[in-house]
């Protein structure tokens, strides 16, 4: 199967292409240097062409997403569309069903999405859902930050065993990377408590969040994992937490990267860049956080942009979610996972005229505008915490148009003038910068830049064409057109197949699931397993033999092999 995209205005930052008319040749799902005359031709007609979108942090599958659906039938009934000859029925806005997840991402021109958190013990569930999300490639980050084995090995300062545990945990969960959520806090939530910063000691386990973060970064690099540690900081969602965030970021200096990427990715920074001491003096510290990123190359972040309206907060940060539910008088689900982590789900409605919400909204945009290098600040809404991913086009339009921002600022609570820098920021991102925040940068942060996020030869043939002619549009003024175009791709091509045309789904192939098979020396594995066997015998409620995700749950795997020991060739 050959395909040729002609006359596209291509933005491919990795390969230095900035709107040039470049033909793209596709064969057998990959981008190649040329194709035969038999290739099907798509005439882009001068329209915007980018690599398929890549999302490094979105809650699309697994236990807590399904809890969100179960507790929110009022959300499910919005966004309902019946089945068609090609598609299954779609439901939901903040917590869509699996089919809507795949279709809606594809309709926006996205082709790769990573689920941001799975507990190992519930990973089978995550994969059951991932297997039913059509079209997109996907993967899931595995939680390690409050796992008993993690804390035991950190306390013992035994990095070999910790590395072996992380490798085994990734295999057990068919996970792609190391997620660390409110490290230590998950365990303390087991008795209804929390840590308040990175230096608190977790009782009984006798470790601090700082030690957990540093140790996980070390073993992440020992194992040479494609992605870095993916950190949800302690103290998330509390006024004044930017200090914890900065202190956490500084920990990155203690570890050297094993490859050309950050050693720490701090996620949904919107929720971690807060000043003040309470809701009364709450203010933005996005400038401090952005400033840190501007001066350091070993940490990256993503926005977690907030969207006004309905959202469903869901996170492994159990104590935060209880606090949220109490604050909002909202319904609350909690999901402790024995020996591993916690989670919580709480619906929220972000209101323009609530000062805290308005300030939060502005923080997300400030982070993107104040961080100079877009490779360091990815576009996310922490779906569906900040808002549903279908609103990425709104965020893109806001970032590309100061005019749109100023129009919006007029409609939100006046607090943004005193508490945020946003009203004075006139930076407008260009198509290349947007392509980085949604493609090249995300792929680089994930460690997938060889095949994802660009349009060079050898890349996956994941391509989006948007109905904008970059040389004929002024995004600053015509932001409505920008938003409309990025909402519904003219074409989305996934693995060389046209899956969306004019915003409509045309095919629903099943994408691949990325996971990492990291090798460690056999003796480290054996030593580590002695501890694991004990934990199963005494503390887990299931048998070790029934713990690991079986091959049946990952039918289209894309395995990335890494290891602490050199991998022999042939």
């Amino acid at each position, binding site marked *: 199967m050959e395909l040729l995209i002609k006359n596209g205005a291509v933005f491919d930052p990795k390969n230095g292409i900035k709107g040039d008319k470049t033909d793209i040749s596709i064969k057998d799902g990959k981008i190649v240097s040329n194709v035969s005359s038999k290739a099907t031709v798509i005439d882009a007609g001068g329209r915007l062409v980018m690599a398929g979108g890549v999302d490094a942090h979105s809650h699309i*599958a697994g*236990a807590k*997403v*399904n*809890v969100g*659906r*179960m*507790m*929110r*039938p*009022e959300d*499910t*009934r919005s966004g*309902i*569309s*019946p*089945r068609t000859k090609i598609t*299954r*029925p*779609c*439901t*939901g806005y903040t*917590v*869509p*069903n*699996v089919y809507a997840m795949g279709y809606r991402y594809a309709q926006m021109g996205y082709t790769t999405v990573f689920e941001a958190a799975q507990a190992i*013990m*519930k990973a*089978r*569930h995550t994969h*059951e*859902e991932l297997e*039913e999300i059509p079209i997109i490639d996907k993967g899931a980050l595995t939680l390690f930050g409050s796992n008993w084995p993690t804390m035991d090995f950190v306390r013992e300062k035994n990095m070999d065993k910790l590395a072996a545990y992380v490798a085994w945990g990734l295999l057990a969960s068919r996970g792609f990377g190391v997620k660390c959520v409110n490290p230590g806090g998950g365990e303390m939530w*087991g*008795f*209804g408590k929390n840590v308040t910063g990175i230096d608190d000691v977790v009782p009984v386990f006798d470790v601090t969040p700082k030690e957990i973060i540093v140790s996980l970064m070390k073993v992440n690099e020992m194992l040479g994992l494609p992605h870095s540690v993916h950190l949800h900081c302690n103290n998330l969602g509390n006024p004044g937490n930017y200090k914890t965030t900065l202190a956490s970021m500084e920990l990155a200096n203690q570890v050297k990267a094993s490859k050309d990427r950050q050693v720490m990715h701090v996620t949904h920074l919107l929720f971690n860049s807060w000043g003040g001491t309470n809701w009364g003096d709450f203010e933005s510290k996005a400038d401090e956080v952005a400033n840190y990123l501007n001066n350091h190359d070993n940490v990256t972040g993503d926005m977690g942009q907030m969207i006004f309206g309905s959202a469903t907060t869901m996170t492994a940060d159990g104590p935060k979610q*209880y606090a949220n*539910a*109490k604050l909002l008088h909202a*319904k*609350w*689900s*909690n*999901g*402790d*996972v*024995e*020996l591993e982590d916690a989670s919580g*789900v*709480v619906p929220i409605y972000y209101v323009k005229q609530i000062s805290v919400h308005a300030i939060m909204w502005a923080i997300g945009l400030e982070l993107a505008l104040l961080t100079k290098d877009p490779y360091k600040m990815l576009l996310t809404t922490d779906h569906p915490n900040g808002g549903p991913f279908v609103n990425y086009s709104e965020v893109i339009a806001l970032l590309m148009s100061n005019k749109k921002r100023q129009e919006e600022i007029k409609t939100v609570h006046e607090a943004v003038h005193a508490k945020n820098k946003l009203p004075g920021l006139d930076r407008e991102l260009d198509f290349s910068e947007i392509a980085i925040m949604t493609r090249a940068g995300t792929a680089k942060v994930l460690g997938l830049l060889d095949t994802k996020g660009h349009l060079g030869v050898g890349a996956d043939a994941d391509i989006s064409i948007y109905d904008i002619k970059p040389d004929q549009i002024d995004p600053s003024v015509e932001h409505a057109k920008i938003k409309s175009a990025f909402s519904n791709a003219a074409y989305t091509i996934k693995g060389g197949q046209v899956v969306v045309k004019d915003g409509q789904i045309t095919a629903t192939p099943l994408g691949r699931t990325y996971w990492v098979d990291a090798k460690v020396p056999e003796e480290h594995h054996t030593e580590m397993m002695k501890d694991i066997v004990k934990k199963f015998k*005494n*503390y*887990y*409620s*299931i*048998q070790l*033999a*029934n713990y690991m995700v*079986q091959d*049946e749950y990952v039918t289209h795997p894309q395995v990335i092999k890494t290891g602490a020991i050199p991998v022999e060739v042939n």
Partner: protein
Amino acid sequence: MTVITDALCPFCGCVCDDLTIVVENNKITDIKNACKLGAAKIMGHHRIEAPMMRADKKSDFKEVSYEEAINEAAQILFKSKRPLMFGWASALCEVHKKGILLAEEVGAIIDNTATVCHAPSTLAVHEKGLPTATLGQIKNRSDVVVFWGSNPVHAHPRHMGRYSVFAKGFFQEKGRKGRKVIVVDVRKTETAGMADEFVQVQQGSDYLVISALRAILSGHADVVPESVGGISKEQLVKLVDTLKAAKFGSIFFGMGLTQSISRYKNIDNAISLITELNAFTKYVISPMRGHYNVTGFGQVCSWETGFATAVDFARGAPYYNPGETAANDVLLRKETDAAMIIAGDAGAHFPADSVRHLARIPVVQIDPYWNATTEVSNVVIPVAICGVEVEGTAYRMDGVSLRMRKMIEPTLPTDVEVLERITERVRELRGE
């Protein structure tokens, strides 16, 4: 002889995964670690051996081929204007997926056995969410354990031993001795007999009692009368003190709450109590789910349709509203004009009026066993037993997903095969 270790039990929502099964010549000859319920199911019973059909429900069945039975099943569903596809709890998630697809294609209502069990709990979750935990969390931490309207000694025989009462855990090294066990029920059950404290509530008064506990907990004991639901105020105040004194408390509730007056509002109220207790100490609440994979149907149906059960596909898009779209709602209104009952026994577990309507309409049954639904069926398609002869996914009562083992080779087709063939045939009838 083959010995299968760490096998999973396909009976109740505990899904115990530590069974040892001995197989000789494709027959299970011994089981270790299973309770009476699990052993009875796994050791096996009389099975339906071949597909059967009859036009008149008062006449005897005639054996037919699978092809004939599947064709007839497809015809019935294809012709129906208001089909109901009910059951699913004794089947694996792989079966649920095929069932939901078929329901979509024929515009059916799909509902599962939770409708007469814990569907009200889901309605309560819509109102208040569900602060819960995996069972190991309770085993390791819980020092106060409450069973409210549930009777694990009968319904979940290994629950107390494996997870909640006698089990020893990391922070609960002493097992039973380290835990305070409270049973709230309308009668002194065997579970109550094993408790440290039995709180006897008047039938139907659970809602009032929970409200009283919430009032006391929130510092408003003054508005609580001297006796609520047959329990003295003094005992209620003491109970609140006991609950508050926990380091990690857990409440397990059963059909005593879901089926009594106030229905799901009992659970709604109990969830609020738990949420409010979290202001003092850690608390979780968990439904004692019945069938081993009734939880799984809710999971699959939620991620595929957005709704946990009682989904009406009449208009091609999911619509959900128990009270309107649940199995008994449409049967009692005599709206259903054809039914498929699979892996659940509506004939035995629905009220008489619902079964009367089933007796009036074409019914297709897919099940390994002859049961009360067989008596009102026109087409009966026997299948292999999920979790014994078929491997696949089940969700334990706490939402932990597990892979059930195949213990012996099946001699009959699986549910998945039968549903796939019916779906293919329906497509043919539609001219696709």
